[in-house]
């Protein structure tokens, strides 16, 4: 009898142990999204989340939904208990794309009481401008941009206090070169050799891609880079720049612009009748609904918008992909009656940033306790931080001195088509429009090359 009871208890213990081990350790906030278990209760506390950037300047078409993303994410996550019971409060300001404004907002934020534990930025120029100051003020930055100088310094040898949520723009360009070299005659069914002309916005963001290292790397992959042309975000015509690059032999235009910048290049390619001859591609921001919506102002001879078929880097999971994280975001998006025009990267990134912030603060509090919660301690957490935000929509691994994302896929912008293959037309606010969709061209994420000055993949 005793043996039976003992065997029964042993089996129960084993099964319980196995079930416990199979369950994710930590707090499940939604299907597939898990935060670390809280060791301290922070109920009654309010933890601010600081962010500023361009909401009304040249970045506006892409960044405007960011505020909605933050707001809906806070509503959702605060409803789920916030950070171990503490409520998160959003402190957001608009710099209008003006660097002077950025400096003054930063000055206000950095002297706030309590001091920010983390600051979210999304402009390369802001990251470069504030790199030294955030280190002095001990305020870590989560950045949605990929500037080598901002993250690693002028000589690319000093990882600082800024951590990026996307790959470096140089590395994105290298990854594109590598892919296009392999897909040129097969997937893309093109003749000759790929030749890239770089056409981007003037400024830190646009200039962050084309370097001697990326040109050498692309050449080593069999892709010639014929140089760069730059234009101001206020420009309304880039036909001269396109003609210059095409006359040098470019059959791909690679752009480090976003929203209206990419749409402008697509429009002028169509105006010049080069839409079939020249491929348009770019950094991750070209794959956004803002580009898909703005591109509808000009149609190709096929009747499709000028931005149909734009290629780009896709280092995260997009709305249209089946994933518990995107499902949650879509659910909240619908529940908050957001317009279809806001269904872009900014909203998604806003949601992902709040999720990341919660995990980051939980890990820091668990390590040092709530009374020792400072920016310096948050940075220590960031230095060993590996996290699948929204259950894997965004993947971060900032261990070993890495400050950026090292994996990506290639994606393509298109428009939703019905069962009959015809584009679906919807009406939003009395305006008829096509629905932009972004789909991965390569299904597996691959590592991006390291093309920082002195990087491991820079040809010797």
């Amino acid at each position, binding site marked *: 009898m005793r043996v039976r009871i003992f065997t029964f208890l042993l089996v129960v213990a084993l099964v319980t142990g196995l079930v416990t081990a199979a369950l994710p350790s930590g707090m499940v906030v939604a299907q597939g999204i898990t935060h670390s278990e809280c060791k301290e209760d922070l109920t009654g506390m309010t933890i601010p989340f600081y962010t500023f950037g361009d909401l009304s300047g040249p970045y506006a078409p892409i960044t405007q939904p960011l505020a*909605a993303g933050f707001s809906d994410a806070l509503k959702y996550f605060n409803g789920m208990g916030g950070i171990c019971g503490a409520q998160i409060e959003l402190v957001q300001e608009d710099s209008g794309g003006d*660097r*002077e*404004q950025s400096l003054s907002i930063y*000055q206000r934020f950095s002297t*706030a*009481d309590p001091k920010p534990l983390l600051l979210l930025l999304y402009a390369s120029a802001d990251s470069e401008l504030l790199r030294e100051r955030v280190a002095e003020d001990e305020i870590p930055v989560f950045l949605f941009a990929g500037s080598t100088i901002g993250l690693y310094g002028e000589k690319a040898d000093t990882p600082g206090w800024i951590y990026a949520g996307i790959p470096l723009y140089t590395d994105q360009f290298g990854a594109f070169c590598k892919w296009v070299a392999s897909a040129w005659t097969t997937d893309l069914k093109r003749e000759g050799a790929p030749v890239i002309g770089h056409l981007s916005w003037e*400024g830190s963001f646009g200039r962050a891609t084309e370097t001697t290292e990326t040109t050498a790397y692309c050449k080593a992959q069999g892709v010639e880079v014929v140089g760069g042309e730059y234009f101001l975000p206020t420009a309304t015509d880039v036909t001269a720049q396109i003609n210059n690059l095409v006359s040098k032999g470019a059959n791909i235009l690679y752009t480090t612009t976003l929203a209206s910048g990419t749409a402008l290049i697509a429009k002028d390619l169509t105006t010049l009748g080069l839409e079939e001859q020249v491929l348009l591609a770019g950094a991750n921001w070209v794959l956004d609904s803002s580009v898909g919506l703005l591109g509808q102002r000009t149609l190709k001879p096929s009747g499709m918008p000028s931005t149909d078929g734009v290629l780009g880097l896709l280092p995260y999971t997009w709305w249209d992909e089946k994933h518990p994280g995107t499902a949650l975001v879509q659910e909240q998006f619908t529940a908050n009656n*957001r317009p279809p025009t806001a269904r872009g990267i900014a909203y998604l990134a806003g949601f992902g940033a709040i999720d990341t912030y919660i995990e980051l603060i939980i890990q820091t509090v668990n390590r040092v306790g709530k009374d020792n919660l400072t920016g310096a301690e948050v940075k220590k957490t960031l230095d060993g931080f590996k996290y699948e935000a929204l259950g894997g929509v965004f993947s971060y691994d900032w261990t070993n001195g890495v400050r950026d994302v090292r994996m990506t896929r290639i994606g393509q912008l298109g428009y939703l088509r019905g069962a009959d293959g015809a584009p679906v037309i919807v009406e939003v606010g009395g305006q008829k429009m096509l629905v932009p969709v972004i789909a991965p061209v390569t299904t597996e994420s691959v590592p991006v090359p390291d093309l920082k000055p002195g990087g491991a993949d820079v040809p010797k």
Partner: protein
Amino acid sequence: MSANIRPSGVFDTTYVQDMTINRTRFDLILSWGFLFVVLLIPLLTREGPFGVDIVPLGAVGTVERIAILMIAVQGLNLLVGYTGQVSLGQAAFMAVGAYSTTVLMRQGMTFWLALPIGALLTGLVGLIFGLPSLRVKGFYLAMATLAAQFIIPWLLRNPLAPLTNGSNPLPVPRTTIGEFVITGAAQYYTLILISLAAMIIARNIIRTRAGRAFVAIRDNDLAAELLGINVFAYKLRAFFVCAVFAGLAGGLLAFESRSVTPDQFDLQSSIELLAMLIIGGAGISQAPLLGVGFVLILREGAIPSLTPLLNDFLPRLLPFIDSVNISASLAPALFGITIILFLIIEPRGLAYRWEIFKISWKLRPFSY
């Protein structure tokens, strides 16, 4: 203006009285009182020596920026307000000052030497862009000076890129006196003192022969020429002085922000500087202080504190507008509306209103 309004029977009896800047005891108390309050600001923050938290720490930065931009706007005031010439390139001139100061510092020169050299270099650049003022005026001159706003950033981004880092920010070395690094309160007092000196110099320029020539050219350049004033030479001098002030402001901005980029000095910045002057009241010496103060306090204090409240309230009031669009356009819309309302209510500027107020006070109870 108000300095000349005095009770009946009160006259200047000495040249010293006639030349003094503060003509009445009230003006004197007001000037010193204002300076005293400004000097007190860093001491009343939580990081001050008394540990009191009366003034928010962020206000220190706002006052620093007011002090810097006031110099640039004062330069513009000398050119636009007193000489009647238009310039849309003031931010570009600031860029020359900021970059030349920074580059010289990066070559090992001390800030205290690099700053005046940078300002003088900017003055020379200003002279070049002032040359068209001989042939054109008004709108056409504005277009000619606009060229500075395109040529200078292009030069900084492209041919001068090895020195300036091109489009990327150029770090500014820390400013020191011996071993002492000028930061925090020391930085604040340095900026205030330089700004104060610039204001006194500007005010005195107006009282010199050159200043009177500027005003004569503004009022009627043909009449000025008939009076024997070399109009072209004085117009060029005005451009030079205006650019020197801009260069000084640019150098101080580099010192304060510790990093310079061409994006900081775009056309929008030039237009904002001109707007600050118009709001302040062009042609009045207090205009830069009032104009810059008004705009920066509005932008850095009033609007950020109003925005969260309106972000909650407006989407409910205007349900037919997407809340995303409301929150994103709130700050520029509030700024624009305030400026428009202000220009309707007081088109001659804050300094003019201040003068009217002072005259009314002096003539009380017979202010009519």
